[in-house]
């Protein structure tokens, strides 16, 4: 049965891979498919071994079947809910309003709460004026507005890094909490590893989020610097750049991390599923277990 299921997974994976042109490129996709197949083979082995153990321990077929079904319901429906809810209780996340307000406040009043936006702008203005040895932004050979916007951008980025850093840390801790539950629930390990191998888990999302944010920062910096040093003067808000310049800007090209990276994030789950396999193999060879008991 386990082999039949595995075959089914292989066939489905193959169909999927062949039907998606982008999947047929690159070895990483095939490695991931191989990883998924191996993972499911291991999982079906665990299920089969567990079924055999239970059949040996409980002589009544109906009761052993019911026990297996109960384990299935417990591990796939009940435990994941309980664990996710406990993770939420252990590490509650801020409400979006509180989160936004904290960011807004720090942007206005400064990261330390004692450095208001106005004072920061004045300080920056003095610094730039001193650098160019002039006494007014209008006398600058460059566009001060562009520099100021970029300075504000740097500050906003620092605030973003702090708050999203904390949020992402909490999300990671919640994910770690569920990862530990793989030691009591192999299904959790399978699910997390599947998500990881399919490039669809939290870590992958955070990786993408970071890449997108980095691209955004580079783009905004390029735009601000163009405004500052591209030939316009302070206060010249109608100044434009030729369309060709925009077409030279690089598009966002996201490169998903390789399988090794994905698996590194899921070490706990890998250890857990291996431990489960080892435990069940050991149980199968325990002296008290005799094949005759099944007969």
């Amino acid at each position, binding site marked *: 049965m386990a082999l039949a299921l595995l075959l089914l997974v292989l066939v489905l994976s193959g169909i999927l891979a062949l039907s998606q042109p982008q999947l047929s490129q690159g070895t990483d996709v095939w490695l991931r498919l191989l990883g998924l197949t191996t993972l499911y083979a291991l999982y079906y082995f665990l299920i089969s071994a567990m079924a055999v153990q239970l059949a040996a321990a409980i002589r009544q*077929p*109906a009761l052993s*079947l*019911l026990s297996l*079904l*109960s384990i299935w*319901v417990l591990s796939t*429906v*009940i435990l*994941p*809910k*309980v*664990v*996710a*809810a406990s*993770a*939420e*209780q252990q590490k*509650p*996340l*801020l*409400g*979006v*309003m*509180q*989160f*936004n307000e904290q960011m807004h406040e720090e942007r206005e009043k400064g990261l330390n709460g004692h450095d208001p936006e106005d004072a920061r702008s004045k300080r920056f203005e003095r610094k730039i004026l001193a650098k160019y040895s002039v006494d007014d932004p209008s006398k600058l050979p460059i566009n001060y507005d562009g520099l100021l916007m970029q300075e504000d951008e740097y500050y906003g980025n620092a605030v973003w890094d702090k708050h999203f850093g904390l*949020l992402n840390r909490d*999300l990671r801790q*919640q*994910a770690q909490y*569920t990862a530990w539950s793989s030691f009591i629930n192999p299904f959790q390990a399978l699910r997390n590893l599947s998500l990881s191998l399919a490039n669809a888990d*939290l870590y992958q*999302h955070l990786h993408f989020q970071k890449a997108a944010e980095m691209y955004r920062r580079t783009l905004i910096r390029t735009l601000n610097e163009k405004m500052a040093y591209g030939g316009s003067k302070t206060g010249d808000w109608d100044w434009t750049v030729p369309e060709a310049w925009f077409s030279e800007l690089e598009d966002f090209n996201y490169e998903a991390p390789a399988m090794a990276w994905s698996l590194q994030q899921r070490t706990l789950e890998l250890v857990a599923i291996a431990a489960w396999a080892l435990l069940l193999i050991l149980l199968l060879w325990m002296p008290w277990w005799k094949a005759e008991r099944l007969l």
Partner: protein
Amino acid sequence: MITTILQYELKQLLRKRVGWALLLFILLGGGYAIAYGWLNYQHYRTQIGEVQQKQAETYAELAPKYDTLTQLGDQAPERLNSFGDPIMADFRYRRYSTWLPGSLSALAVGQRDQQTPYQRIQLYRNVNLPELEEINNPEQLLAGNFDLSFVLVYLLPLLVIVLGFNALSQDREEGILSLLKVQGLTPKQLLFTRVGLQFGLLWGLSLLICSIGFGVVGADWAHWPAWGLGCGAWLLLWAGLVAWVNTWGRSSAFNATVLAGFWIVLLILLPALTNFWVDRTYPVLPRSEFMATARDISSQEWDRPMAAILADFQKTQPDLYAKIPQPIRDTQAIKVFMYNENSIAKVEQLGAPLMRTGSQRLDLENRLKYLNPAYAFNAILTTSAGTELSNFIDWQNATKETLKQNRELVTQIGLSGKTFKKAEFERLPTFKAPPLKAQVGGNLLCLGVLAGLLWLLVWWSAQRNAAQV
């Protein structure tokens, strides 16, 4: 005879360790679900509370300023000038529409964790573009909630199966059935009495858990009959399935497998297929695509030449244009007004299918409930708790109406060249929640009809298979 069977079966049930284990399981599960729901609801209420507090705070902060503006008129200090600007008044007075179902939603979370719980009431806001998406634990969203409705919808049927899968087959397998037949007892009597007893016990248990839940979360007891009857009809349906499978005269293992299959089909496969069907029938624009298109619409609207905007305004709003005092005519104020009107109208047009899809999906799901009784039972629980999709749609429509009233007031005052004083400030609309719809009659009827039909099938099957039974 039936009384004797009942007394005997009750004794047997009480002696079974499995029975006690199950009782413990359901009590623990129910207790955990109630506690989970209660904590979850408290967290939700806190979030809504923060928003409402923010609204009250800004009102308390602003009201005296508008009092001053009204009392002093042109003599008011210069620092208060910007408070008279309608757009700034609208911006400063933070008002929210909040979706706060009653405390019964602690027992049936429904759509509450999936939808945006509040939206700001402000000039440029669009109901389709909520900017305050709650931060959620993705693991939690993936796994779902362990609330009492989950226990009742998913776990109760498992108990019916575990208690009744071998209602008749075990006696046959142990050779007792023939002995019982000799004593003048028909297998049909035995089966119906056993299943009936198990149904009665489980219904009693579910009523007890529901009552504890209602008591703990302080829910409105007016909804208790709907929950009680819903549990009864749902259990009757599952007891019918158990009895039906038992009438086939097969082994206990076979019965268990078939009943587990029913559980998977009715609670996992059918809902998934229904969702798939609804998704395919009424597809929605992905959120990111929707946002990007809406943003493009807004930018294009803003970038239109001033002359075209003014011509448009005169054409579409002749009455309003006539009322606008000369200094405001042909100014940025009109551009802002038209930008808002046009972009909101266009984004609403873009979002209309999204809004409509919600109702269409609901209609389709309502029609499919005869195929999927789990949906009907779940709808009874969530509708009475105010967390059903229809409740959310009502809230969204009420929000849309408030946003419209707000837009009308702010633009009307702004374009007439007036400023905000206390009277205008007080007229800024605040959200009033629509009444919760809690009609569950249709779904109860659906469950009752399905259970009744199933029991007719059981009766017919028992007659037909009398020899095997």
